């Protein structure tokens, strides 16, 4: 079976995770690229919570997928690839916080992208900055729920599978997160 990239673009869930995992194990790297298309944004968003820097989040994201690829035979239930990947991501982030990647980033950071930095600083979109600030104030669970929900095409079933919680639990977390964000944004509007 070969995987047409266009079928997978945009996180479309036409091919089950388990099938992609199996095909990857058979040596089809295109299948793994399907999994990458489906989850890379989510992984980067989670990493960004730790790094607070998109470039570094992208680097960590690559590490997550490399690790997942080389440990793919350890995945007990391929249908739960998403949840498994999220747990790898959290581990990688934990290691990052402990400084395991310090050396690597000394080097990676050797060539700061001066233009990208300038763009970020000059960004006039204060609204988005407020939103980022509000997101940073959420608990890890609430933030993760938002990431999963919004980056998995707002598919509650997929989100609850990845987070391993009930549907009502997911909605509770989402509602709480939204409420906190709105409160933060209302306050910053007033000031």
């Amino acid at each position, binding site marked *: 079976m070969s995987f047409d990239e266009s079928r997978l673009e945009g996180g479309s869930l036409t091919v089950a995770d*388990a099938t992609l995992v199996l095909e990857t194990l*058979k*040596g089809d790297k295109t299948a793994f690229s399907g999994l990458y298309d489906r989850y890379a944004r989510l992984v980067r968003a989670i990493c960004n919570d730790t790094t607070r820097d998109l470039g570094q989040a992208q680097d960590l994201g690559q590490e997550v997928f490399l690790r997942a690829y080389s440990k793919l*035979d350890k995945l007990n239930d391929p249908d739960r690839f998403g949840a498994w990947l999220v747990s790898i991501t959290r581990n990688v982030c934990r290691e990052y916080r402990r400084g395991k990647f310090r050396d690597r980033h000394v080097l990676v950071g050797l060539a700061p992208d001066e233009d990208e930095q300038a763009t970020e600083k000059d960004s006039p979109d204060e609204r988005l900055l407020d939103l980022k600030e509000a997101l940073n104030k959420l608990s890890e669970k609430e933030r993760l729920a938002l990431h999963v929900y919004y*980056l998995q095409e707002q598919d509650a079933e997929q989100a609850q599978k990845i987070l391993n919680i009930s549907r009502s639990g997911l909605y509770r977390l989402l509602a709480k997160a939204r409420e906190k964000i709105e409160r933060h944004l209302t306050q910053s509007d007033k000031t």
Partner: protein
Amino acid sequence: MNVSLNNDLPDYYKEFGQNHQYLRERLLGTLPEVQWKVERAETASRGEIASLLFSGVRLRSSLRTALAAAAVLAIAFGIFVHFGSECDNPQAAWAAAIENAGQVQSVHFRFSTGNSSVEMWCRHPQEFRDFRVEYSNGIVTTNNYEKHCYYSKKTNLLSIRSANGPPLEKYLLGELGKLFIEKSPFSGDLISESKILHSEKITYKGEQCLKIIAEMKGDRFEYILDKKDPLIFEVKRYGPSGKVRSHVEVLDVDRNMPDSLFIIVPQGKKVADRRGK
């Protein structure tokens, strides 16, 4: 309230899709050559797949070999394929570069930016065997199959760990590859995205070389290539302001490197041996 969450949250999440295609190609280009043995029929239910994964899959890893090959390709030959080939067909040039990459036994290079630098020695890359890295901040590391050594001149502490997984250098080399391969390591896409502004024959370190100035996404790249072999001697990357962003110099290729280069002698150092812990 100015913010509508329904609009702004999706807006916020858009940024995580930035460079997605590039990152995907880069990842695919650096995936290790792992061959999984799956002995079963083409079709399988999810339950069957799960049980298969529990029991029947064997990994035949040639991880190090693949990573090393990718690293050497990225370091020494990537640019040649983009700009240095006299061959009209970029695919043929790429194939030739891959062929040549297999022959390299050692690489020594320096990579620097305005504020820091790193010097790296890599030996027997096909087997991903020995690395030494010296950072400008006084950190020295040596890595091989058996152990990872990390020495800080500042603290005089040498810490030793067992090697379990790809050495750090894999990542370093991968990142260095970014300098050369802006879009995707094994794709010809960037050939059409880059533009050669100027080229001239020069003598560089006594060798007949080709200097090529190219532009890619607003940055200017200056390459010095050996005319005879597909090897890069030097790459300088300038930002739009004309400031040097990075500078890579390949100092030696295929030079004998003594064993002592890849060993940090513990004598006179505080040693933290963390092997087996």
